[in-house]
């Protein structure tokens, strides 16, 4: 069983997705099972990965550069755990949100499976194909409601995503022309020899791939698709996109930078500055834009851009502390943003409006949801006792250690702006001056009580986890220790 672990984790959601499409029965049970069984398998063998073991799976039994390989090392273990855990919450919340037909769960399972595929693969072209599958299932999820606006958002994402992945493919072509292989570990073995002869070509391949993935992670000038796509999707899908799909791009960043392009210091020193600039600009831009929004989910989408900037800064610093902070912030942001989007989903369902001004006096109606929202936004701002503070603090201390005091100032300014826009919402929650609280007439009474409990308790559990991680950060940091180790050793086996 342990030998086949990587392929089982990828193929189970894929096969079950098709299965529910064919039989259209036991949809929820099967899709929950398709996520729980891989999660269980992963946790069962987790002690091995935490000790730094690596599983290499040869698809078709072909030796190293001939065939495609799947690798689970510390980093892929960390990310796959993140994806699977988030997927559990998202499926449970989707049960509350609406009675979705089989096609929704099909898209959801396929996007989960393709994310796991990207995480485990050690082959660039395979990464590209899985990314394409992920993007296609994302288009379909964004446009799931088939409303005009979400169709436009989906189309916009399709164009941007298609161009981005073509850039990635062209970069892959340059790499293949130079190396003659597509396997990441084999490329990194030959990298130093080839780099000295073909400096410009490698630089271009690097630039093309970074542009391609930069579109996917919505780094500053390439962010145009994100606010629409993330805000117009159904709330559960928004949580999926903002919480984990964006992070997959960051994962590819790490793989490519630390696995290939960072091996030569000449390139890496330059990109370090590049990252810090990119991260800071993305951070400030996301924060300022979020301040100007009047739509709740759009605000949260811009907040994602803001937090992506912090994560990029963490990787730009590049020391052990910086990487720890960045990886921990990925986890924290996933938890907080998923719970925020779930809260937003409940708020929109109760008030029937997405506009901030209609939130007035909401604390009277759903005090616990408002409390969860406040805790999650405290995490986003970086107030102590919630997990977001810890990771921001680690990144700031890493910046001081590495001699970038300006970065700390930028993060602090952005945190103040973040505080401004979240406090604006919280103020509206407690603004009881509104005489009549807007009530959505079609507030669903017919919903079975179990599903309401599911919807609310996913949020409470997520809030509980975020507070737990804020009080005992070592719980999360122990988990990402092997990931940092494998990054710092440049994924050497």
């Amino acid at each position, binding site marked *: 069983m342990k030998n086949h672990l990587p392929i089982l984790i990828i193929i189970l959601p894929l096969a079950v997705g098709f299965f529910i499409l064919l039989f259209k029965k036991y949809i929820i049970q099967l899709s929950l099972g398709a996520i729980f069984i891989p999660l269980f398998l992963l946790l069962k063998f987790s002690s091995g990965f935490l000790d730094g073991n690596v599983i290499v799976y040869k698809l078709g039994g072909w030796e190293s550069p001939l065939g495609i390989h799947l690798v689970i090392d510390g980093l892929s273990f960390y990310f796959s755990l993140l994806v699977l855990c988030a997927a559990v919450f998202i499926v449970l919340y989707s049960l509350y949100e609406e009675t979705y037909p089989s096609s929704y769960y099909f898209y959801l399972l396929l996007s989960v499976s393709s994310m796991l595929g990207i995480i485990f693969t050690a082959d660039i072209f395979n990464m590209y194909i899985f990314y*394409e599958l992920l993007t296609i299932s994302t*288009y379909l999820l964004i446009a799931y409601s088939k409303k*005009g606006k979400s169709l436009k958002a989906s*189309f916009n994402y399709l164009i941007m995503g*298609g*161009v981005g992945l*073509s850039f990635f493919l062209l970069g892959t*072509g340059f790499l293949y022309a130079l190396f003659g292989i597509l396997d990441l570990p084999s490329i990194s073995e030959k990298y130093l020899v080839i780099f000295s002869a073909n400096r410009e070509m490698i630089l271009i391949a690097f630039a093309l791939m970074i542009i391609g993935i930069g579109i996917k992670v919505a780094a500053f000038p390439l962010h145009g698709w994100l606010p629409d796509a993330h805000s117009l999707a159904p709330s559960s899908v928004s949580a999926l996109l903002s919480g984990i799909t964006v992070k997959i791009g960051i994962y590819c960043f790490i793989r490519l930078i630390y696995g290939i392009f960072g091996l030569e210091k000449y390139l890496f020193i330059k990109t370090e500055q590049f990252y810090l600039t990119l991260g800071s600009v993305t951070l400030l831009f996301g924060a300022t834009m979020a301040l100007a929004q009047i739509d709740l989910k759009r605000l949260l989408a811009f907040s994602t851009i803001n937090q992506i900037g912090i994560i990029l800064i963490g990787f730009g610093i590049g020391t052990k502390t910086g990487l720890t902070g960045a990886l921990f912030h990925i986890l924290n942001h996933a938890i907080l943003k998923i719970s925020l989007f779930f809260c937003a989903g409940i708020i929109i369902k109760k008030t029937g409006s997405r506009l901030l001004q209609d939130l007035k006096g909401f604390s009277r109606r759903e005090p616990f949801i408002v409390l969860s929202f406040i805790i999650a936004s405290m995490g986003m701002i970086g107030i102590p006792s919630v997990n977001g503070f810890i990771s921001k603090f680690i990144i700031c201390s890493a910046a001081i250690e590495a001699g970038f005091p300006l970065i700390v100032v930028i993060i602090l300014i952005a945190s103040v702006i973040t505080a401004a826009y979240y406090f604006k919402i919280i103020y509206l929650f407690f603004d009881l001056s509104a005489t009549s609280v807007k009530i959505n007439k079609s507030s669903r009474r017919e919903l079975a009580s179990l599903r309401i409990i599911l919807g609310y308790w996913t949020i409470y559990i997520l809030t509980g986890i975020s507070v737990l991680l804020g009080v005992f950060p070592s719980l999360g940091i122990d988990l990402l220790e092997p990931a940092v180790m494998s990054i710092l050793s440049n994924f050497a086996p």
Partner: protein
Amino acid sequence: MNPLHISILLFFIGLYGVINKNNLIKKIIGLTIINGSTVLFFISISYSEGGIAPIFSKDISRESVQAMVNPVPQALMLTAIVIGVSVTALALALIVKIYEKYKTLDIQQLLKGR
């Protein structure tokens, strides 16, 4: 100029179409050109002078293997072509749906009519 350069040129011509054209279908045409250019790029990096297709038959003996071109990019491009077809088809379906809702294909008017 050789096919490598031409494929890069085509890539950016397609990108120009995607960025500057206002009609949604023209944007998709740009995307298709981009996809075609990457296919051309992959095929031309595997070409070797006097190369033959990497397929054995009765006329081609096992000794002529040295003249054969690298089969990997061609196999990769089979996959990339299918993906291109899928994305194009999906985009066209979206365009049909958008046209049904807004009765226009012009991106400026679509952006206005939020």
